[in-house]
């Protein structure tokens, strides 16, 4: 893992470094701003509803309940990122585990697990999410669960394909030969082997998760008010679009920028992990990667 990160860093481009730094700064801002500001994103001031951009004390104006848009944006972003990252993490862990186990042990476990994955994939994400929300009620934890369940198949499929070819790789076979138990092989070469791919996929999934969450919030099924989320802000902003278009534009722009940045980082991680770049490898490995790459990363999610 450390070497992966190191090699990634050494091969970054200026544009990328800027993006990464910007993302890092934004992250810092999101987490530090609430600590230093006195503006509470939940404080209502109905008299002051729909204050325009640039109002003193409300740099980005206020919403329908007179709450400060900047503060809500920051808190919304933080909630969004935390919730979606938690969901993505869970999806990555479960999906990777399922994929590895199914591909490594094959047989019945393969059949059962990958069938379960197929079943989840056969539901469009949003439908799936709506059912779960209807089941457990809206809320942060539900969003985490929704992301985990909706996106674990992406990871499962990815690691499944990768492990299927990895387990035939000579170095994995030799690990078994040299006396590695199955558990050791899984923890060792297999996990290390899928690590970079999972990492790249995780960034992409994070973007998908943010998209899904904002869609859910838009339908009122995501994060519960009054805590803000980008989707909620867009949904509310749309209601008052005629009165105060910025309340729609600001969160939309932030959402798109966030997603673009995530996608960019995901692309970058994926491109840099392309073995063609890392070492001169044989052609076999090359075509293998090409196939995998086409199978990976997208899943559902884009556009949802």
């Amino acid at each position: 893992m450390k070497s992966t990160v190191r090699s990634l860093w050494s091969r970054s481009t200026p544009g990328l470094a800027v993006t990464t730094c910007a993302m890092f700064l934004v992250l810092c801002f999101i987490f530090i701003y609430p600590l230093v500001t006195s503006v509470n994103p939940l404080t209502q001031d109905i008299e002051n509803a729909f204050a325009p951009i640039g109002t003193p004390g409300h740099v980005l104006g206020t919403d329908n309940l007179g709450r400060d848009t900047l503060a809500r944006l920051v808190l919304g972003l933080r909630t969004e990122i935390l919730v979606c990252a938690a969901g993505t993490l869970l999806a990555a862990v479960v999906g990777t585990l399922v994929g590895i186990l199914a591909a490594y042990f094959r047989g019945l476990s393969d059949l059962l697990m990958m069938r379960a994955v197929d079943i989840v994939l056969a539901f469009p994400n949003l439908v799936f999410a709506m059912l779960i929300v209807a089941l457990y009620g809206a809320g942060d934890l539900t969003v985490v669960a929704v992301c985990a369940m909706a996106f674990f198949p992406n990871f499962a499929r990815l690691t499944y394909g990768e492990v299927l070819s990895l387990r035939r790789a000579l170095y994995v076979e030799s690990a078994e030969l040299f006396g590695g138990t199955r558990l050791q092989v899984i923890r060792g070469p297999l996990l290390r082997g899928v690590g970079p791919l999972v990492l790249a996929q995780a960034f992409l999934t994070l973007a998908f998760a943010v998209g899904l969450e904002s869609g859910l919030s838009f339908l009122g099924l995501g994060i519960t008010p009054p805590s803000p989320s980008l989707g909620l802000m867009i949904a509310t902003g749309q209601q008052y679009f005629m009165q105060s278009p910025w309340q729609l534009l600001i969160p939309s722009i932030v959402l798109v920028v966030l997603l673009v940045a995530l996608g960019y980082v995901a692309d970058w991680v994926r491109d840099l992990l392309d073995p063609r770049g890392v070492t001169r490898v044989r052609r076999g490995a090359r075509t293998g990667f090409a196939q995998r790459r086409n199978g990976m990363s997208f899943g559902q999610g884009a556009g949802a």
Partner: protein
Amino acid sequence: SAEGGSTDGRGTEASQTLKIGFSAEPPGFKTGVDQGSANKQLITLVRRGLLSYGPDGKVVPALASKYEVSDNNLTYTFTLRPDLKFSDGDPLTAEDVKRTFEYLAVPGNGAADQTSFANIASIGTPDETTVVLTLKKPQTALPKVIASPLSAIVPENAVDANGAPIGAGPFMVSEYRKGVSYKLKADPNYYDAGSVKLKEIEMTFMPDAQTRVKALVSGQVQFIDYVPAADYKTLENAKGVKLDTSHGLYGALQFNLTKGPLAVPKVRQAIAYALDLKAQNQAGTLGYGTANGGLPIPVDSEYYDEKQANHFAQDVGKAKSLLAEAGYPNGGFSLKLLTNSQYFGFTERAQVVKSDLEKIGITVELETGDYANQIAKGNSGSYDLMIGGPPAAISDPSALTGAFIGGPTFVRSAGINQDLYAQLLDKGAQTPDGPERKAIYQKIGDIYLQDVPFVTFGMGTAAYAYTDALKGFEMLSGPTVYSSLYSMATVQLSD
């Protein structure tokens, strides 16, 4: 042609086809069941009862040209107009009235005004055009009940849960596209067919409020219902569009009185003092509703009591001391507030409640979901607080009965102490209008202020918006607001 839909209705020779952007797909034609605003509005167009509401909300004759009440207030004699027909051409007789009213009286049929009809001891039909209702006990509001669209007379083949879309109203259903639209056309069999100007009504279902507003502004429809308060400003300023607003149903914070701190009346009083009704009105109706507490009685009603309505003016200090008296100094407990994200005003109100209650140390956690979720949880009483409102189908203080008396349902606070109110409410319902009746309801109000089984926010807001080419539309106010489409029988599109 129908292309674009943007020019229709504004041409020189007005086409008299009214396109409506309708807030929901009406669930159906179940006889007497209150299936929401969309359904009531559709019924208002397609069916008719013995009576209906005039432009000012007063009861006016409809299928019955007149009625007489006996001196003891127990016998009502209705005289039907001659040669009434249903839209399918079948004659409408006193028998149909009897059958309909008897159906409405059966509890399992789910009629909204079931108790009113159950109060009818017998229905006599001396001839084809005379109906005699004999009541068990007097009911002052009976004419209003009968004027409600839910009491419309239906033919024999429609008196059931899957009722056919047939009635004796000014319009008849000519086409129904599931999930898309209803098309209505003028019913030649309507008793007053001559004064119906509209030839056709096209109701397209647009569940999303923004969509309706967009559709109206861009000219794709000429009339929309259930305009969200958020868009009043926009529509007031839009050219060629008229916005009618009035007061709608009451909003309230309901309690679950069966458990925890909320079982203590002082705690409920404290909460009532903590709430800022003005902010509520602002958040839930953007200021177009009213901010009055007390009993949910419309401000323009003669039974409205100004003093009671302002009893719980926001007073955080008092709220805190009440909490302390009740044994909860500084609050310190937390409550689950049930609401839904499907309809405008609910989460908005909930957020204000949350911020108000947190000022007196009560933690509030919102629970949202779709409306079905709220109904289910509300019906089973699995909530502490809920954004809701008392039911009312008619503009009469006797409608208060629904807010206090009856089986467990989401429209009433769970575990309400019905014995406190039952007797007085019964008396009020039987007493004819007058000072005696007013005193009874005042007394109920005093009990309410001590007991606080729910906190009334004030009246909600309701609005219709339409092209200003539409002349003659009259919006009703208060509980009867969703009967406003009665006036569609006489409106006209000009150019």
